[in-house]
């Protein structure tokens, strides 16, 4: 007993250094192997035929439009969710109402549910043979599932928690007194929101929005079930990549993956930058 004790005290002088290096290197090597290796494979495969064949692969009409469709559906989703997400967060923080706790826990559902199951659920709800899907098609001549609205809907489901979970803590930490002061000083509540609340939560809104955007770009499981997969119309980049992999065209698949990753990486860097600026301001 006594002996082990002396041992530990002795070790504290020397082990920190060793633990320090050991921890750092094991973490960095692990990260490099796990992340860098796939990255290298994709880059090498994408650029194997030279920069021109890479350019060729990504400027092929079907590829270009798939990237474009991914970006616009994700962007549309992001905009809608930034509005609805902020609203939801606002309601959750400001008001008390029955079922609030339920709503609050329900919001994480998209994090937890397998996206493939999301796709199945959407087909069962909005498919052309279901009452709702049939009604919408009859009334508005619009098809939800197997078409681009289905993609946006699946992404909306997926992205809903991101903005809320980013905005909620900021809203909660806002000084209520500040708001009340402005309010009693005669400012309308809308003005209060615009002048005081909005600027404070805007960075969080953007961070959450961009995160959901990046997440939506790579989404596959639900889209593969819900989209019509028509090249140039309703085929997203992730599904296009799947098609290229399936038909043995690994170079094209890797090239488009590289573009997607670049977009996503830029987005996350932007998030990083915004977060840094926010903490610098605070």
């Amino acid at each position, binding site marked *: 007993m006594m002996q082990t004790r002396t041992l530990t005290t002795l070790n504290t002088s020397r082990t920190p250094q060793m633990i320090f290096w050991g921890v*750092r290197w094991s973490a960095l090597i692990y*990260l490099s192997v796990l992340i860098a290796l796939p990255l290298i*494979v994709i880059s090498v495969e994408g650029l194997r035929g030279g920069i021109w064949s890479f350019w060729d692969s990504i400027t092929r009409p079907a590829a270009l439009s798939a990237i474009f469709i991914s970006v616009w559906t994700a962007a549309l989703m992001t905009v809608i969710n930034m509005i609805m997400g902020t609203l939801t967060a606002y309601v959750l923080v400001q008001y008390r109402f029955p079922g609030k706790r339920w709503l609050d*826990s329900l919001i994480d*559902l998209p994090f937890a549910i*397998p996206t493939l199951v999301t796709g199945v*659920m959407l087909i069962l709800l909005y498919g052309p043979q279901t009452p709702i899907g049939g009604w919408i098609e009859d009334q508005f001549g619009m098809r939800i599932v197997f078409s681009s609205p289905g993609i946006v809907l699946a992404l909306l489901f997926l992205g809903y928690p991101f903005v809320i979970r980013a905005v909620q803590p900021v809203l909660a930490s806002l000084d209520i007194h500040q708001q009340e002061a402005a309010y009693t000083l005669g400012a309308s509540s809308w003005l209060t929101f615009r002048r005081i609340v909005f600027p404070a939560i805007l960075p969080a809104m953007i961070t959450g929005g961009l995160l959901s955007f*990046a997440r939506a770009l790579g989404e596959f499981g639900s889209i593969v079930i819900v989209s019509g997969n028509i090249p140039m119309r309703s085929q997203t980049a992730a599904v296009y990549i799947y098609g290229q*992999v399936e038909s043995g065209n690994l170079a094209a698949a890797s090239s488009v993956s590289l573009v997607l990753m670049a977009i996503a*990486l830029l987005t996350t860097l932007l998030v990083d930058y915004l977060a840094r600026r926010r903490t610098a301001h605070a």
Partner: protein
Amino acid sequence: MRKFVLIGLVLSYAGVLLLAPMLALVINLLEYGLDTIWAAITTPEALLALRLSLILALCSVMINTVMGVLIAWVLVRHQFWGKRFFNAVVDLPFVVSPVIVGYVLIVLFGRQGWLSGFPVQLAFSTAGMLLVTVFVSLPFVIREVMPVLAAITPEQEEAAFTLGASHTLTFRRILLPILWPSILYGIVLTLARSLGEFGAAAVAGGGVQGVTETATIYVYRALQDRNDVGAYSIAVILGLMAVGILILMNWLRPQEGKKHVD
């Protein structure tokens, strides 16, 4: 007045977006009757698929928790060249198409792959499926732990040190209690993501029934086989697991708002 409009708006949006699809699934399933559902769940293939999903998810949680805390620690506490780069690439698994992840595994470890001499059979095996699952769920623990770790001042740790506590003791007594809620939350997210993985696992495992077929792959195949009961019942089980995970999340979610007391 405005309060009720806003609440109504949010509740109906959340209801349509989140609740309605779940209800549609459950209602469609219940039409088959409980006996049929029970029979569909207890087929050996379905049970094996569920078991594989659980095993993969639990293993991936263990690996990602230990390595995630270590990586978070290094990224927050250590200063080194390329740190910002590492910080940025941690999120990569969120955005790489999972099909590509599976395919990269085959390119690396498949027959005549770049690393085909690797002693462990990774391509088309459960080991490979674990590897891709670990990959896609890597960021969660790291991202949950990092901000909390950053908020603890090194002085607190050092104070413990100088008082004679060993490294492990400092970690166990000082850091772990503070980090624990965020680690748990990360674990739960990792669990959810691993259970739901489809594209990467399907490509990496080859989808052999009863061998490399996970619950999500089973759902996909059952749909193709017109085995709707099988597909919906396993989908609902996955959904119920999701709800279970949800309840855990709600318990564990770092309440940043409440903690905001100086």
